[in-house]
């Protein structure tokens, strides 16, 4: 099993969910996060006081998929989230040791 952790532009979330749904991947966890990589923030001015705002709002998607499905999930996700500009985000793949469904103790891919 692979965990896919993706940081994307908030306004791309719906497109990404649609794209994943199309290939049959439904379950995911979404967190509103703030951060930045190479993208520069913006300047805000309040009564002449300037603030450089570097940590920008992003959405983090976390989901776990069977190994053989991870490639197509990553592709669908990346294609849907891409605008081609700096700030589109990143995707990380992590090996998952075990998955357990709390309701009935299903384990492994059964639990996904």
């Amino acid at each position: 099993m692979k965990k896919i952790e993706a940081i994307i532009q908030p306004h791309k979330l719906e497109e990404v969910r649609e794209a994943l749904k199309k290939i049959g991947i439904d379950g995911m966890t979404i967190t509103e996060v703030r951060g930045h990589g190479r993208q520069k923030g913006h300047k805000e001015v309040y009564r002449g006081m300037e603030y450089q705002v570097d940590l920008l709002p992003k959405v983090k998607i976390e989901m776990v998929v069977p190994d053989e499905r991870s490639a197509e999930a990553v592709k669908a996700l990346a294609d849907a989230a891409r605008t081609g500009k700096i700030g589109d985000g990143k995707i990380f793949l992590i090996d998952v040791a075990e998955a357990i469904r709390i309701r009935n103790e299903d384990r492994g891919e059964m639990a996904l």
Partner: protein
Amino acid sequence: MTKLLLGFLSVASFLAAQPADLEKRLADVEAAAKAARLSGDNAWMLTSAALVLMMTGPGLALFYGGLVRRKNVLSTMMHSFILMAVVTVVWALVGYSFAFGEGNSFVGGMQYFFLNGVGGDPNGDYAATIPHATFMIYQLMFAIITPALISGAFAERIKFSGMLLFTILWVLVVYFPMAHMVWGKNGLLGALWGQIPTLDFAGGTVVHITSGVSALVCALYLGKRRGFGTESMRPNNLVLSTVGACLLWVGWFGFNAGSALAATSLATSAFVTTHLATAAAALGWMLAEWLRQGKPSVLGAISGAVAGLVAITPASGFVKPMPAMLIGLVAGIVCYVMVSVVKNKFGYDDALDAFGVHGIGGTVGALMTGVFATKEVNDLFGGKPMGLLEGNAGQLMNNAIGAAIAWVLGIVGTFVILKICDAVTGVRCEEEEEIEGLDLSMHGEEGYNLEA
């Protein structure tokens, strides 16, 4: 009503044969006319009193509350809200008497302590057509908002107990004497009976200069907020601030037009000038910022509106519409420069710009009142010229003296009071309390419990 009275008068002179009956009917008509006037004026003044209270809560509470960081939103709103209670109690016990009792040139006497003798009968010295108690409760609302305005300067770092003690001493030492000098019977700066007659229609000097200057002293005395200039101090919610500014604008009609103390054409005149000046000031600030910074900010537009409201306050019942717009425009631009350029040069931390907007806007208004006051709007001096443009240069001088007295009283009074509070309760909170935020450290609450 006048026609009716005249009719009765002529009939009375013709038919002297039955004087007793006619005299009685004449007296009845006069009584009815007086009652009608009283009823109309009282309705307007009670409404105005409620409008002015609305300026503090929710108006100012929202305006200031939105400008601080989220960890201080509640404490900042509390600084306005709790004064609605604290100042009310002080006012009822001794404050009204110190402000409006017949005393010397500087402070009122004790005759209205505990609101003794303040009831349904009008007090002819102040307002002949409304109950004395209406006048009293209306003036209370001014005493509430004035110290609340100061809270913009010490927001995010004052100790709550220190704030309470400061406010009680401040209204006693600064506000009540200043209100007495300008509006109280035999006051030093009274337009009609003062040794130095100043023109301050609705409190530009009494409310805005005193609070603004005192705010500057507080900001300097308390020092900067931790992280000022290095950490982000962006407003937590400008939506709240915008709603607050709109409520201030609406409430200010009670403040200025209500200061006519009757539902007269003078009230209308003050209503109109207030509105026009505010519009011009909002545009003035917005355009100045747009030119200098490249973007017309919402915070700029609403700050400009407040600056205009402040500046037109002393002038509202004395000037015509076009000068009112000019006063607003000047105030909007001057306050913008003060807050966005001058303040940053000096580096003091007037957190929410109580001095830049109220101290400076109030002074601009006081001086421009001396220039543009006209007997065509309010013939207070019985046909004699009023402002500089009518040929009364002395008025500009008098208003400058009035403003200077407010500056000095504000600076000295506030400094002494802060020293006292520092010794008794302390004024600045502990470092950890400030880092944690005053909402939690002072009140044990948070403004936004989004997970709840």
